[in-house]
């Protein structure tokens, strides 16, 4: 499942990449009301396209994919970004813990161990680290990368995120919601490539809003009660 907004330049390669890795995977592109030909390109490469009638933001778009997975009865859902920064060759790392029944949510993290080559600018590195610490503290399990959009979910995870997923800047809060709902979380080391085209949705100006919003969301999420999921075994 690939959320995309105005990624006509990259989405073709992403879909091709996933299908080249394993042609039996159903690729679903969630087009968040792009103004370019993202939907057309994705469809031409053989992806199923869910086209939102207006822009709902990354969280709402991602959740559309989870709802699709739930409705179609999938037991495994993978999410990777539409800009090509996630390498489909690393999908087995994410799938394995789920197939072994060890985790409900697998996060492709850039910081599990020191082997990763990704070195973000100082400010962003600090931000990522602070959020990771906070989520670890509030969720009761060590999390190393809470901003990753490279994840895999089993049926329980799909059910949770189809029902409950934050709307903007969702990844950090979603990780906490997953932990508090009793999902078993695993992390695997992945590399992320530099963006191929387009610009990151996180600009400098929005960073402050991002930090404040996520802090508030984490605070509120840790005060809220989440029902333990039926299938969660943690």
């Amino acid at each position, binding site marked *: 499942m690939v959320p995309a907004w105005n990624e006509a330049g990259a989405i073709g390669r992403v879909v091709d990449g996933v299908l080249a890795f394993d042609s039996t995977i159903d690729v679903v592109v*969630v087009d968040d009301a792009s103004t370019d030909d993202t939907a057309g390109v994705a469809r031409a490469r053989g992806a*199923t*396209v*869910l*086209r*939102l*009638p*207006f822009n*709902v933001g990354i969280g*709402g778009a991602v*959740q*559309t994919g989870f*709802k*699709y997975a739930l*409705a179609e009865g999938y037991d495994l859902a993978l999410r990777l970004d539409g800009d090509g920064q996630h390498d489909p060759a690393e999908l087995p790392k994410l799938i394995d813990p789920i197939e072994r029944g060890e985790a409900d949510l697998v996060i492709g993290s850039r910081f599990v161990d020191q082997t990763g080559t990704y070195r973000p600018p100082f400010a962003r590195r600090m931000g990522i680290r602070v959020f990771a610490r906070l989520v670890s503290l509030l969720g009761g399990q060590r999390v190393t990368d809470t901003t990753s959009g490279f994840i895999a979910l089993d049926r329980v995870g799909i059910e949770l995120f189809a029902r409950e997923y934050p*709307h903007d800047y969702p990844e950090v809060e979603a990780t906490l919601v997953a932990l508090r709902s009793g999902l078993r979380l695993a992390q695997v080391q992945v590399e992320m490539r530099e963006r191929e085209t387009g610009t990151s949705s996180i600009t400098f100006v929005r960073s402050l809003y991002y930090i404040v919003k996520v802090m508030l969301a984490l605070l509120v999420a840790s005060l809220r009660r989440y029902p333990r999921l039926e299938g969660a075994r943690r």
Partner: protein
Amino acid sequence: MTPFRVSIVGVVASILLILVVLELVRGRRLKERYALLWLATGGVLLVLSAWRGGLNTIAGWVGVSTYPPAVLFAVATLFILLVLLHYSTVISKLTDENIELAQRVALLEEQVSRLAADESGSTRARSARVDQIAQS
């Protein structure tokens, strides 16, 4: 003491507010559930403006007995804050529902196009069969 003119202006303004709100509801331009808070605002301000003794007493309680109309401002401000907060909750709910609808539309559209493709596929198969039968 409250100046007489303040009371008169207060009463007139509150009655005007109530009348405007009622007219909007009558004309179906305002839903009853959103009119209630405004009517309560008008009602409370009307009572406080007309009941001069009460306003003076309350002003004494909150320490502004030198200028009791300040209570009117404070109460009006408080109600405006309540209305705005109420609207924020309404907007939040609408946002959630809006996104939910957009997601449903996206899922349904995909389903419809899939069904339509199946349909046209089977129609084509059927007409091919009809052609075969016609030829034999």
